[in-house]
């Protein structure tokens, strides 16, 4: 594995040039490039960094879980299980600047595992919830639309879904999304365009448009 050379806020790795997020402390990026494969248990400062990153972007991960389970407590449980899985496999993460996308994939896979497992607490399936009658209060209607939107987002490929989640949940523009995911602006633009195009054709958003416009 070629060693990473820090150059300001950029890291050159062979021919590629990867943009490194300014939030990653030097100590952490050094651990990932040198000691991650040797240490079975990540040191405290790495866990502290991971905890901080997950806390700052909690809404994003909670949105994934909520889209699958439609229940706040199940969603929270799913994110916690995903965090434990991520800790066990943290040394497998090669580029710390892509931690958000990496953890989002873990969260999604954890949710799917929990849904597939018949012994898990998540007894309510997606279909049952979507068929459940909505109450007439405005808040409840809004919550139902949120659920439906999150379900539609979860149907997208993960690389497109994460971009849309950042856009919808955190109201990020292209530059912010690119910075948070460690991607180029053009890549984000293409993914967002494709994802929004798919969403615009979805029956959920069409119904939403008809109801509110």
């Amino acid at each position, binding site marked *: 594995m070629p060693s990473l050379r820090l150059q300001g806020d950029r890291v050159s790795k062979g021919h590629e040039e990867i943009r490194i997020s300014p939030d990653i402390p030097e100590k952490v990026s050094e651990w990932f490039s040198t000691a991650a494969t040797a240490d079975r248990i990540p040191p405290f400062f790495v866990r502290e960094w991971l905890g901080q990153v*997950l*806390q700052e972007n909690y809404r994003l991960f909670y949105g994934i879980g909520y889209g699958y389970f439609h229940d706040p407590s199940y969603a*929270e449980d799913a994110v916690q299980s995903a965090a434990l899985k991520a*800790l066990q496999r943290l040394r497998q993460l090669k580029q710390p600047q892509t931690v958000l996308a990496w953890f989002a994939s873990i969260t999604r896979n954890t949710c799917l595992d929990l849904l597939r497992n018949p012994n898990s607490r998540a007894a309510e399936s997606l279909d049952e919830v979507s068929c459940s009658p909505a109450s007439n209060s405005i808040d409840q209607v809004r919550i139902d639309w949120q659920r439906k939107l999150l379900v539609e987002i979860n149907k997208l490929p993960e690389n497109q879904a994460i971009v849309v989640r950042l856009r*919808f*949940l955190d109201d990020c*523009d*292209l530059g912010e999304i690119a910075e948070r995911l460690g991607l180029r602006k053009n890549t984000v633009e293409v993914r967002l365009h494709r994802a*929004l195009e798919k969403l*615009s054709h979805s029956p959920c958003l069409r119904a939403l448009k008809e109801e509110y416009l």
Partner: protein
Amino acid sequence: MKGRDLLRDYLAGHLTREDAQRELTGRAKESRHLLPIMDADRHGRHFLSDLQPPEGAAERLTQVILSPDLSSNVFRENTQVGRLQKIFDLMPFDVVGAGRPVSKSKSKRSKIKKVAPARIRRSNRKTANRKTTNKKGKRK
């Protein structure tokens, strides 16, 4: 302005949806398909902007990650022994039926050597020399 540039400016936050609609005149009218995309974006942001996780959930997650017991629980190798395994460990090793006395007839039978019947070699000549033409000399 080209359609793609328009969408880029909109997604970057430099243009509003109304501005984009105003720009879509003349040749750029072909890019009217961008408007539903912008609508989808607007609706999505409108509805999901106020999605709130349970109170203190993010802090609880951080606590889970930083808790001192973590190293002993998450990173411990799978050394837990199941109940059945414990019972098997306590029992002396025994193969079921191994202690049963073997009857005489069975022991005699086991002494007789079984010889595999000799293989009968068949020549391939017949098949090799099989005629491909019939009596009249025509090919089959």
